[in-house]
């Protein structure tokens, strides 16, 4: 099964690989407590992701939280393409001047009840980018943040835990 003997990824080989390796997803840790007020979602949240001006570090961790290993979709959490579909807004990075208005509008476009999760030290304090040219300030200066996930960047497991507090699963 080494790549040298079977270089091509055929349908048969893919099927065999999936059958042999089985589930890539890690076993689920016990469910964390509900975030107060998130019970209304009933175990289903849609997430709109915004990078307000970070270095993509936190964005990568968010992306792996939604990947097959951490598999946050199994707790009823899905990424969506429009704030109108979203219940939770996930923001990474310090807010750049050009993003002040877009993040405010995004929050306004999200139907209530809604929650905002800020991920990473840059989003919470500005991090290494604070005071930088083009940086307007951390996310809580512009919009209300309900849940903070500190870290530089935070591990995907921490992001998964914050999101699970919204579905309670």
């Amino acid at each position, binding site marked *: 099964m080494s790549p040298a003997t079977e270089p091509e990824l055929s349908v048969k080989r893919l099927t065999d690989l999936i059958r042999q390796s089985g589930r890539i997803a890690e076993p689920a840790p016990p469910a964390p407590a509900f975030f107060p007020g998130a019970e209304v979602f009933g175990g289903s949240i849609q997430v709109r992701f915004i990078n307000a001006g970070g270095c993509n570090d936190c964005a990568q961790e968010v992306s792996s939280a939604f990947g097959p290993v951490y598999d946050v*979709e199994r707790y009823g959490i899905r990424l969506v393409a429009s704030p109108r579909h979203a219940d939770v807004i996930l923001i990474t990075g310090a807010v750049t001047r050009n993003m002040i208005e877009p993040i405010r509008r995004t929050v306004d476009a999200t139907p209530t009840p809604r929650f905002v999760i800020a991920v990473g030290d840059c989003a919470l304090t500005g991090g290494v980018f604070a005071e930088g040219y083009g940086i307007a300030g951390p996310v809580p200066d512009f919009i209300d943040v309900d849940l903070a996930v500190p870290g530089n960047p935070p591990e995907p497991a921490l992001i998964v835990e914050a999101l699970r507090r919204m579905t309670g699963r």
Partner: protein
Amino acid sequence: MTGAAIAIALVQLVLFVFLSPLLIGVIRQVRARLEGRAGAGIWQPWRDVRKLLTKDPVRAADSSWMLAAGPVTLLVSSLLLVALLPLVGTLPLPLIPSDLFVIVSVMLIGVVALALVGLDAGTAFGGMGSSRHMTVAALVEPTLLLAVYALSIPAGTSTLSLIVETRLANPAVIISPVSLLAMVALAIAIMAETSRLPVDNPSTHLELTMLHEAMVLEASGRDLAWLELGSWLKLAALLGLLSNLIVPWGVLTEFSPLGLLVGVVTVTVKILALGVVLSVGEVFLAKARLFRVPELLAGSFALALLAVTASYLVA
């Protein structure tokens, strides 16, 4: 007879409102397992709809009443489709026949309502989605009509219930070349009509690749719930029609309580089985380039045309 037909239509409505989110759940769960993920469970679409109904819709400042009316129109057209198609039983409703042309017209009402919802808020992606959606619809409708027309020739009628009954009475018709050609054409047309792969990717986040998703970007709360449920109902109804045309056994032809139970169970099993097949097939498919979609649909139209031609030459 009339009472029985109405009872069956009601049973179909109730069954499909419960079954269609379950079908989507099964499709997503099978896909998740094949991708090595754990999956959200088969009841997740139910939770999604329940949650959407509790949220307050946010409508764009420039949108009109269409954004509120369109989703309900789509839902009603899908419900009508479910009531008219021969899914649990083949007893036709007395006033509205389950005629081929009626079915396609009812479906078209939903298609147009969805396109208007996409246009209403005036966003770039909504308009793009609507334009793509109407292009696909214009290419799909002739194929749908022609494919079912080919199936109607052996039955001598364009009423779908009677077509299913003919296939039940005479199973040799099912594996005739005419029927096989028409079924392939119909299957491709249904995939395009319900925005599945390879025409549209139902789980995409990339606006530029969207067809169906682009039109619903501006809908929220209960508007979105009706749009989702309407689309799921349409998928379940069309898969039900396809499965009843391929495997007509189990469908109710004369009213009896036991027959009704058998009809409900068999149609549920058939649709879920077809959903699993669809999901497994989709794992191995990539979305076709938009400019290749007309080629695929023209191919299915050609198959439908061959089926009609063959039905006069062979039969």
